[in-house]
């Protein structure tokens, strides 16, 4: 039928667009992961990380370029249709930026922080921040022995409070609830691991 040919055209366009967005999301993920790797490397010698730290500049530029492309793709009324396709990249990007911010300030980056340079979906921010706690755990496990006990404890406290705040979130829809639950489970584990470090530090 004639209508089905029209359907085919519309469905094909949507499919193509979705694939372009997924490609962008993957590229953001890759750049963010590289950025996190560099952050671990840099912070192994200098902590807190200096504010003028710029070894991740290249990656940030790449990410911002991809975010620009994404913005173009999503500049249509049906942008929400593709929200799920770009979420993984956005979360990874939040994770990287939030980790850098923590290494510099030992506090939590805000979703409206100028560094992000885009308007974040609130929930991508939450999930990205949850992922960041895993990086902090890895950082503390590797370098915990260099710090005073009181400092490690204050970092654990930071993780605990973040955990409590995320746990207090209510009324999420089922899918977000499940995503968050899974991340919080990982966060519980991260905190336990840091506690174990404290324990063996004491003995």
């Amino acid at each position, binding site marked *: 039928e004639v209508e*089905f040919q029209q359907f*085919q055209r*519309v*469905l094909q366009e949507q499919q193509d667009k979705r694939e372009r967005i997924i490609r962008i999301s993957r590229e953001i993920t890759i750049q963010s992961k590289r950025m996190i790797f560099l952050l671990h490397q840099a912070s192994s010698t200098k902590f807190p990380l200096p504010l003028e730290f710029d070894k991740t500049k290249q990656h940030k530029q790449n990410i911002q370029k991809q975010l620009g492309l994404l913005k173009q793709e999503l500049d249509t009324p049906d*942008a*929400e249709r593709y929200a799920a396709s770009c979420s993984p990249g956005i979360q990874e990007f939040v994770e990287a930026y939030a980790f850098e911010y923590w290494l510099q300030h030992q506090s939590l980056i805000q979703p409206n922080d100028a560094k992000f340079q885009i308007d974040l979906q609130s929930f991508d921010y939450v999930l990205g921040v949850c992922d960041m706690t895993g990086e902090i755990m890895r950082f503390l496990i590797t370098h915990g022995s260099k710090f005073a006990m009181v400092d490690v404890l204050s970092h654990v406290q930071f993780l605990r409070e973040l955990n409590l705040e995320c746990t207090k979130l*209510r*009324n999420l829809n089922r899918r977000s609830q499940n995503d968050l639950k899974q991340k919080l489970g990982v966060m519980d584990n991260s905190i336990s691991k840091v506690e174990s470090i404290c324990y063996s530090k004491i003995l």
Partner: protein
Amino acid sequence: SIFRELQAKIDHETSLRDELSSRVETIDQESKVLRLLLGEFEISNNETSIDITKSIEVIKVKIQELAKVASEHSYYKYVNVWDRAIQEVACLTLLAAWRGALQGHEDKKYQLLTLEQVGQILNATLVPVYPEEVKFHISIEEYLHGVLSISTELARLSVNAVIYGNKEVPLKSLQTIENVHSSFQLLSLKNDSLRRHFDGLKYQLKRAEDVVYDMRI
């Protein structure tokens, strides 16, 4: 704090979602009534035809109400709240027309309505048909799910028709399912729910063919 702001945003979305859900539920309830009526239509033809038309009218009003609330917000953010309900309504509208049970559309007996026709029947003014518009509408996917679901209904109908000595329905059913099958082959479906739904169509086709084959012997 940031988490309090987040919570406020989430609460707002949830209450909206709840309102939409409760409207969708009233549509689902009426759909069940309509499905039963269509089941009875086999036996007592014309008498139930009025009830069927009325029931679709009720659904139409309820969809309008849903559309009013939904249209104030981003369509794709909440579409998963109502898409299954709309698929079912699409299927039942198609089925009512196919059976000639829809008053004013008796000429569509044994035919499948187009997406535009379904849209007109359910609400000519408020429901635009193509997805670039982001107001509430019946999407291509919803319509196509409806088309696949009606094939299952038609295959079943064939079996029952034979019991009541009706030889026309099995033949027409088979024709329709064959049409659906060949039309779908025009589409390049991804590995999504539509593809999985379509994968079941071959069984319906086989069933309808068997009935016609058995009838001929």
